[in-house]
């Protein structure tokens, strides 16, 4: 199929709505064919239980001491006992323009064109850690057993390969995590992005991150 997602969404919406295209927030992606997996963390639903962290560790056999996913709790907003917290998901953003892939000297860090997922091929890696330093989100770490960089890969080789949702997504008790194909306008994630105000982290760096966030109603909006 040689129709860009933008055009696809535009024509799809044109059929449904007929008019008012200019007001629809379109998310641009480099992927023209195939899927473009993305994730949405709804911070207004997140209760900070860290069930996602445990599920990820278990499913992807992540050793203690390192993690592919962290839920970072903000400073308390308001006075005890009425204090509120917001929660921030720290994990790979599966950038459309990933600095980690750009700097990797051997092509071990790569972006899968079929799915848009950024992953590491340990068989090509030399362990120079250029990618670890280049990731502005600081989500890469050296896997203590494999000695190569590791990070969230949307469960590409575990749950996703078995046709299941990523472990963190299924573990979330409040359904604060949504995973899906952002190239498919009918997917839940596309619907959410199209209808709710979302933000992404460090957009000015030009990385085009594909981890979307819905801000909690409390506190300052992170950038």
């Amino acid at each position, binding site marked *: 199929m040689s129709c860009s997602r933008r055009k696809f969404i535009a024509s799809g919406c044109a059929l449904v709505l007929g008019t008012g295209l200019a007001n629809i927030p379109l998310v641009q992606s480099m992927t023209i064919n195939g899927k473009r997996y993305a994730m949405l963390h709804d911070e207004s639903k997140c209760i900070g239980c860290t069930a996602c962290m445990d599920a990820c560790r278990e499913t992807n056999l992540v050793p203690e001491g390192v993690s592919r996913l962290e839920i970072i709790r903000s400073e308390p907003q308001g006075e005890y006992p009425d204090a509120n917290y917001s929660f921030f998901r720290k994990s790979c953003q599966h950038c459309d323009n990933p600095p980690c892939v750009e700097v990797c*000297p051997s092509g071990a860090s790569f972006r899968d064109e079929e799915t848009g997922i950024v992953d590491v091929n340990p068989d090509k890696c030399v362990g120079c850690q250029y990618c670890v330093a280049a990731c502005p989100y600081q989500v890469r770490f050296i896997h203590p057993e494999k000695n190569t960089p590791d990070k969230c890969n949307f469960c590409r080789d575990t749950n996703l390969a078995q046709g299941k949702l990523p472990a963190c997504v299924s573990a979330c008790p409040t359904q604060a995590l949504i995973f899906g194909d952002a190239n498919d306008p009918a997917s839940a994630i596309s619907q959410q992005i199209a209808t709710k105000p979302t933000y992404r982290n460090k957009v000015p760096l030009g990385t085009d991150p594909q981890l979307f966030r819905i801000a909690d109603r409390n506190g300052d909006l992170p950038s």
Partner: protein
Amino acid sequence: MSTGIFDSVQHAFHFDSLVWHGPIALYLFLLGLSAGAAMLAVVLKRWILPRNNETLNNRASENGLIRATAIIAPASILLSLVILIQHLTMPLTFWRLIIYYNFTSVMSIGVMLLQLYSVVLALWMALLFRHELDQLIDRWMPGRIKNIYPRVMQSVAKFENTLEWLLLGIAISLGAYTGFLLAELKTYPLLNNPILPLLFFFSGLSSGVAGVMLLGVTVFKARLDAASTHWLHKLERPVILCEALALAALFSLLFYIGGRSEVAALAAIGGGFWSGVFWLGIVGLGLLTPLMLQTFTPAEARQRVSFVVLLTSCSLSGVLMLRYFILYAGQMTVY
């Protein structure tokens, strides 16, 4: 009090956003030194020595400074590669760097440059020391090699001019490469800017000048009153000035950009362990001391070997500290 100092030093070398450690600073220093020495070798041999009729029997290899470059350039590149490979999390897989390439990766381009550099440097050095090499081959090598050797050397000699220009070009690129490698890192505002390659180029050249001078006049007995030594001596000041200018430009730019860049600049030079290294070590010892020494020392005293040793040691340690400072202080602040 003493634990306070200990803690701050601990903190200066161990923090969360630190990915690349000390050996990388040493690697960048040695690479800059090698590139600087190679640039000087070509310029000395091609322009400076012939101009002053200093080449005995038409042999540049007799010159003490040239001999110093012939040790520094290959030795420091070799050492730097050993250090780099040591620093990989899987040192035994380093060969993958030579098999797989990624043209968007500065490091990959650096690997190509390094390989080209090693070959060109080796060939050019062989030509430069042809007379010495002839004797060695004659004495130690078996007949077969003795037979092939003159023909090989003859065909290499045809490209001497090309090799020279190539070596100069690669050495300049390699000098800048040490800066581009870090400037690529979007994570760190202090590193992610266009001045860094310029700064590293000039400081690499400065370390080259100092290193060649130091080794040349001590070990290889280059005469201090020779025109070539004089030329190298005169080069010190403008190169150090360029280095200082690039350093000033780097921090002006960071403050001008503001935001996280300003935060990074302040964290680096506005207090703490690394700002001490910056002001005392890099600015004081590495830049101001040599400049002052050059300006205010009487002419007779400047002709002493001890003076040269003092001056070059200052600028060499300044450049070494600059590499450590940029690497560590650069990684302290993230976007």
